[in-house]
């Protein structure tokens, strides 16, 4: 029973994990991205279409990555090079994503593909309780594990990672050290957006291998909140995504078991939970727990007079 719940937790949390990781990369560089929801949808559609057309899941994932990267590059260009308002640009991206995927997704409704299948890791997958949820999953989930470590390593053990963090904290300091601030931010936003797209692709290639209009159903927004919960750390993002996945899994379980509580009320749970998590995380932030990147949300203009 616990095993089934854990399994559902991991599977439920994975799209959000990708989205949160991508958002963390953006925000570490100092750019807020409220277009996560739109990017997930773009990734979901592109991933599905790519797999549909080519028969290959890998092509689908790549297509999702590239499509989301391109969409994210618009937000990047506007907020970094043009120093536009980051909140409005992100909202525009989400709206655009919702609309454009609805438009081009019409032709995909009703089609199905063979989605990701589980691959058991020999030995580990036989462990009690955690064997199936963590070591008998599909390739994308394994990739997400790797990504969590890779991102942490990148930020704390490489020079580029240090440069990105500095750009988010004090871009002028990075500039005077010779770091190309605008280029760094642009790349962080586009690549981060691509990773968000992979999260969307998980929805249409693994969770339910099909395309449905608006299939991310608000997960992108949950990811934005989870970034704060995660204190911009990829390990805590993992915890947060699975926490959320767990709530969703339980809620679905209750529905399936047929409780007297209305399905609509149950569906509210993840959102309530996210708000609660957000409040608690924000309060913790005030008390001095790991702070947000100091320059988050500010455009960088070298010629700004002090």
């Amino acid at each position, binding site marked *: 029973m616990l095993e089934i719940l854990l399994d559902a937790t991991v599977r439920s949390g994975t799209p959000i994990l990708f989205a949160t990781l991508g958002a963390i990369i953006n925000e570490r560089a100092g750019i807020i991205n409220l277009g996560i929801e739109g990017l997930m949808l773009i990734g979901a559609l592109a991933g599905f279409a790519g797999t549909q057309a080519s028969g290959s899941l890998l092509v689908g994932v790549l297509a999702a990555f590239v499509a989301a990267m391109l969409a994210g590059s618009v937000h990047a260009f506007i907020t970094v090079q043009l120093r536009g308002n980051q909140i409005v640009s992100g909202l525009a991206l989400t709206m655009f994503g919702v609309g454009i995927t609805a438009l081009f997704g019409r032709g995909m409704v009703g089609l199905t593909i063979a989605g990701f299948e589980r691959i058991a890791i020999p030995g580990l997958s036989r462990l009690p309780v955690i064997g199936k949820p963590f070591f008998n999953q599909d390739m994308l989930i394994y990739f997400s594990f790797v990504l969590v470590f890779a991102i942490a390593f990148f930020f704390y053990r*490489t020079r*580029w990672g240090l440069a990105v963090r*500095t750009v988010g*904290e*004090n871009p002028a*300091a990075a500039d005077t*050290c*010779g770091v190309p601030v605008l280029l760094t931010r642009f790349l962080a936003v586009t690549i981060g957006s691509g990773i968000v797209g992979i999260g969307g692709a998980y929805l249409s290639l693994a969770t339910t291998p099909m395309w449905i209009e608006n299939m991310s159903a608000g997960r992108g927004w949950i990811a934005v909140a989870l970034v704060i919960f995660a204190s911009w750390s990829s390990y805590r993002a993992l915890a947060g995504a699975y926490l959320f996945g767990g709530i969703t899994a339980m809620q679905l379980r209750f529905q399936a078991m047929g409780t007297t509580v209305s399905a609509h009320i149950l569906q509210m749970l993840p959102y309530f939970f996210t708000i609660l998590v957000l409040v608690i995380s924000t309060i913790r932030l005030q008390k001095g727990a790991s702070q947000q990147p100091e320059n988050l949300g500010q455009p960088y203009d070298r010629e700004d*007079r002090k």
Partner: protein
Amino acid sequence: MNNLLQIKNIRKTFPGVIALDEISLSIAPGEIHTLLGENGAGKSTLMNVLTGLYRPERGEILFDGTPVQFSSPRESLELGIGMVHQHFMLVPAHTVFENVLLALDKVPNFYSRRKYRQQVQQILDQFNLDFDLDTPVWKLSIGAQQWIELIKLLVRDCRLLILDEPTAVLTPQESARLFEVLIRLRDEGKSILFISHKMREVMEISDRVTVLKKGRSLVTLSRGEYNENKLASLMIGEDQIPEWQKSFRTSQDLALEIKNLSVRNDRGLADLDNFTMKIHRGQILGIAGVAGNGQKALAEVLTGLKEASSGRIMAGERDITNSSARGSYIAGIAHIPEDRKSIGIAPDMTVDDNLIMKNFTSPSFRRGIFQDRGAIRRNAAEKINQFAIKAGPTGNPVRYLSGGNIQKVIIARELSENPAVLVALYPTRGLDIGSAEYVHKVIADGASNGMSTILISEDLDELLKLSDEIVVMFRGRLAGSVDPETATREEIGLLMSGEVQT
């Protein structure tokens, strides 16, 4: 003599301001060259041009005889020009090691932690600096942070080091230590471009001095060709610096009494620690101390912006310890904030609107829930006249005013209800001499009318000039109290650095 750096006819403008007006100067190898000039003369702008942060519209820069152009700080850094800015280019949340690492040249992406930690540690040892590589920078004192900034330049082996007002945040003792290092670097053949407006330092350390005024260089003089008075008159164009007539006007009545006040900050450290002080009516009480030793917390508690964790503030018989900002104002305490642009004004609103920010609910400015725009306009006209504010056309957003005029708007607003106490935090910082003089006049006039002023400043000259009494703050406590007539700078410096407690 081959010049290391030659600047020819550089011109740089910003919307509405000519910052650099065909400026020219040259720097020789192995010299300490000081740029002297009052605020607004163009020193910082020129430095930002030299380090690739600003792009000039006209002119030429020659480094080692070859024309160069910087389109980014990276390029100027690669040539060997490095700068310690007035506002530090450090990341407070990162460690010492991380801050220095980013400044190092040619570090591979997957670097060896051990190798580079060793390298940074070596440099620290070279200069006898005792910092733990893993301390987050926000925990270091401001003087220590400045050393880190300097280290960042030294690891890149810069040939020209530019230091922008480095002693602003140092005690006299720390400044002396810095000068030792600078002289050592000069003797090694490096050139140092030193920016200051403190006359004594200029006299002490410079090999050559260039005086800037209104974006141009007036003259370059070598050691021996100038003295303090000559430099001062070149800088402000008058033969005499106006001398103040100071008279003691301390009455016996207490305006404010602060007893054992303590304030904690969000990191749990004590900003203000058992602080005790008395201010009399009509007294100008100067508070000296390196920035960051509790001055801001004191000002914020006095004006109701922060809560005290213990202790009392008495205004006469009334205990005003934890009243809100409005309460404090009504109790007769006005406040000239440290950072005028960021907390002193509502930048997008007009001068009229800014002038009534503190008393906009007063019945004279409104009729019921509606504002009386006519009365607001009349009030503004009166204040503009009284304080000689150059406000521009009516309806102009206040952020377009010059620093000095913004300060006047703030002063006009704060003094409009005849406060009993004025808390002024670094009120002349960044102002040109004329505006600074004006602020001093307002404070002195206020004193003769019975208004007490708590003057918090980093400028010892200003404090010595104006104050009836000077107290020194160190680590949130009162380190000592001196008489400006008899105290020496060294005395005050020792108190500021905490080496002596009286």
